[in-house]
């Protein structure tokens, strides 16, 4: 331990000692002064502090809001339509609870101050009043019904079926990153099976790319290759979405529970191994537009894992790039399917000068992504 550390500890201990001595002395003084007198004095001090706390507390609430509100997502529009609904709901709730908060806290501390002990006052024997109690049963009940009504209206809107024209993207969580999959030209996701996952072979999702036979606890399984998966695009660097085009995410996990958290879209859904989940939304602004709106040149739509998933949880970041339709088509055209025919399975060169169209993505794709280094073949 450093000397400063010891020094700090010594100061702390000294502070304790002094506080304790003062406290003890005040006890003796109160005995000398007479218990009644010192009680009344302490009572006045605490009663006064009640109202001080109330006033300073409310000022603090205001200052805190002033300092921190700009750092939240609230000053900027939500990046999805669902998010706008959620923001509206937030404002309604904030208004109602805010009124109740102010009312009850002011009454609490004001009453405490006003009705502090005085020899002259007699407490009012007031055991119950059925009318009053009915009022504060029914008024909160009605208010809550309003909140439930608004809440469920938006809830069903958000969790309802995705529109027919929604683009489908699959997102799979794993310790500690995200894998995105697009269905390819045929618009059909190829089948996958978790026992087919082979990281060394580049099959990170367990796509049924080849026939195989395996021994499982359920007996021998013959697995047939699924050709619809040959053109699926598998990506780990970023998920590309189109502005104003609804997107339905099909959410999976490869190992433990993760959560696709999209704060700017106000969306969130768990990724549960063995139980696919879905959510849909419509991005309203491209990443570039959001950079301007938030006045932050570093703005990105980040995917934050919101469910404790292990020691790398805090670093489990994904990326969404919202682009225009044209940009998306361009990006799609550059993508290579993840499918790797058996013949090419042998040595997978990590760096291989490929056609210019392929190299664009290579830098960010990372070592786990086989698609940009291997030629497709269907």
């Amino acid at each position, binding site marked *: 331990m450093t000397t400063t550390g010891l020094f700090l500890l010594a100061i702390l201990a000294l502070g304790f000692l002094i506080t304790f001595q003062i406290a003890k002395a005040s006890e003796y003084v109160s005995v000398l002064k007479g218990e009644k007198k010192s009680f009344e004095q302490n009572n006045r001090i*605490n009663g006064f502090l009640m109202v001080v706390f109330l006033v300073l507390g409310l000022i603090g609430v205001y200052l805190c809001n002033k300092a921190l509100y700009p750092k939240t997502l609230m000053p900027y529009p939500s990046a999805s339509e669902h998010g706008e609904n959620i923001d509206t709901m937030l404002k309604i*709730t904030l208004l109602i609870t805010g009124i109740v908060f102010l009312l009850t806290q002011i009454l609490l501390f004001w009453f405490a101050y006003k009705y502090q002990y005085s020899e002259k006052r007699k407490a009012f024997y007031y055991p119950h009043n059925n009318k*009053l109690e009915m009022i504060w049963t029914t008024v909160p009940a009605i208010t809550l019904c309003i909140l439930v009504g608004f809440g469920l209206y938006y809830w069903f809107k958000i969790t309802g079926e995705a529109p027919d024209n929604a683009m489908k993207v699959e997102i799979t969580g794993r310790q500690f990153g995200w894998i995105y999959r697009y269905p390819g030209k045929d618009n059909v996701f190829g089948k996958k099976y978790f026992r087919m996952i082979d990281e060394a072979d580049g099959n990170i999702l367990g796509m049924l790319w080849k026939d195989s036979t395996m021994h499982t606890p359920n007996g021998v399984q013959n697995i047939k290759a699924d050709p619809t998966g040959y053109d699926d695009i598998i990506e780990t660097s970023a998920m590309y979405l189109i502005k104003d085009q609804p997107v339905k995410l099909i959410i999976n996990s490869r190992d433990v529970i993760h959560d696709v958290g999209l704060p700017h879209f106000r969306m969130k859904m768990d990724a549960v191994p063995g139980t696919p989940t879905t959510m849909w939304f419509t991005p309203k602004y491209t990443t570039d537009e959001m950079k301007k709106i938030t006045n932050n040149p570093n703005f990105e739509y980040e995917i934050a894992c919101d469910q404790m998933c292990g020691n790398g949880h805090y670093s489990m970041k994904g990326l969404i790039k919202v682009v225009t339709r044209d940009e998306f088509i361009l990006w799609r055209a550059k993508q290579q399917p993840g499918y790797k025919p058996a013949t090419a399975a042998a040595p997978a060169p990590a760096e291989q000068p490929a056609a210019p169209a392929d190299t664009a993505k290579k830098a960010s794709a990372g070592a786990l992504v086989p698609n940009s280094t291997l030629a497709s073949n269907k």
Partner: protein
Amino acid sequence: MSHGHAEVLTTHEVHHDEHGVHHHHQSFISKYVFSQDHKIIAKQFLITGMIWAIIGGLMSVLFRLQLGYPDQTFPWLEDILGNWAKGGKITPENYYALVTMHGTILVFFVLTGGLSGTFANFLIPLQVGARDMASPMMNMLSYWFFFGGSIVMMSSLFIQTGPFSGGWTAYPPLSALGDASPGSKTGMDLWITAMAMFVVSSLLGGLNYVSTVLNLRTKGMSMTRLPLTIWALFFTAVLGILSFPVLLSGFILLLFDRHAGTSFYLSDIYIAATNQALPNEGGSAILYQHLFWFLGHPEVYIILLPAMGMASEILSVNSRKPIFGYMAMVGSLFAITILAFLVWAHHMFVTGLNPFLGSVFVLLTLLIAVPSAIKVFNWLTTIWKANIKFTPGMLFALGFVSLFISGGLTGIFLGNSTLDIHLHDTYFVIAHFHIVMGVSAFFGMFAGIYHWFPKMYGRYMNSTLAYIHFWVTLIGAYLIFWPMHYEGLAGMPRRYLDYSNWASFNQFGDLNRFISTVAMIVFSIQLLFVFNFFYSIFKGRKVTTQNPWGSTTLEWTAPIHPGHGNWEGEIPEVHRWAYDYSKDGRDFIPQTEPIAANESKH
């Protein structure tokens, strides 16, 4: 003062018949260690809980250090923690171990065991007028299972692979698979063992509390004359009895998945660390969450109800006024107890739960705000036109109400599934539950300790230290948790140890440092309280009157230092409810006083 005359008269007359009370020789071990006296057991729970609270609180200081100063190293941390903080920086696995243990310890070992264990044991026999619990033996076992569970939980801190580190909710598959997280190896087995012992302790205690309240009330003590503390502790015990077994069953299935090759919670899992697909198929990870939260949500009320009950009692005594709406208070406790079982899935809105089912849980969850609102308004009316004495207990009871309002209102945000989509698992949640069930339950506990300390030890705690303790803790609690709501509104996720790599969340560096600093100050003030507590046991100002607060309830009719058996001679008979304060021009009328002919009715 009118209290106590009956005892003074009878003590000498029956003295010689009461061998059980006075002349029974007890060894140190049977009196203080394996004691069957509910008062000693209560103190054992309290002091064990306090030790746990210091450990759990210190853990939060350590991980707040990481959160406040993610880019700095503290070489002295390595001196204290060794491998946990190599090079003066807490490693991720140990950060998560600290967070997980902090949650487990505070929720279960402090605010359930420490709070219910202390006050149910101490107050139930004394306030219903019983010599002891229905089964003192079971009561003793309850403490020793708690103690055993504590030892096992503590031991997990010292094993090679570290304690469990997957969050206090212990969701599988993470908690089931050692290969997914080192903390889920032996640490998790010890965690489950400790929790199983805790559940046993909780059940032994709870059954005792319920049977004592139902069967051992003194003559005249009808259920509607019980103080609200007893009602609250009674419902707490009912909640525990009905929900803890479900938790245990969830843990047992988890244990099977871990060691017996079953697939209750596991399906379709590939572990990258071992490059292996697991054999499990067909399980549901969500099943565990249903079982867990079926306890987990009632657990919130297991923590909160005793605090509510004690706050009600202390507010009334120190306001010199009856609690407003006694029957409504009992009714709202009952409503909360019932609803507590019907809201668990609000923790699971974003797990892929059927949205329709989710909507049912929204309705039921927001319904629980109605009895909560009744309680708040009744507390406010209780202090209206009162004559308030700011004893330390009263201050903490008032603080409890303030915190309960603040934290309760944010529950209306989170219980509404629409908002929960955005706020789930963010700092908003942390702020919400720390205020509403963490700090406010602690305030209830502090209120109880200050208020009943004279009954426990026959001495007072130092008031000046108590005032400092109260004001610093109240202000500190708000300074720590209020700004966290804003972090939540920025979508900042829980359980991250470093936000600096996130463009979306790295704007709160200063705030995190500020929160960490306040947390350290508040923690050190709690040490002042602990010091005050232990110092006052031996050196505090002595209690000289039997009923120092001028209270109506039965515990203050017992001697200042009650022996095993509580009352010398007959147990007093009860003639009225517990809240006749400032009635008919009298400051208070004890429950033991018969109703006078010309007394006004309430």
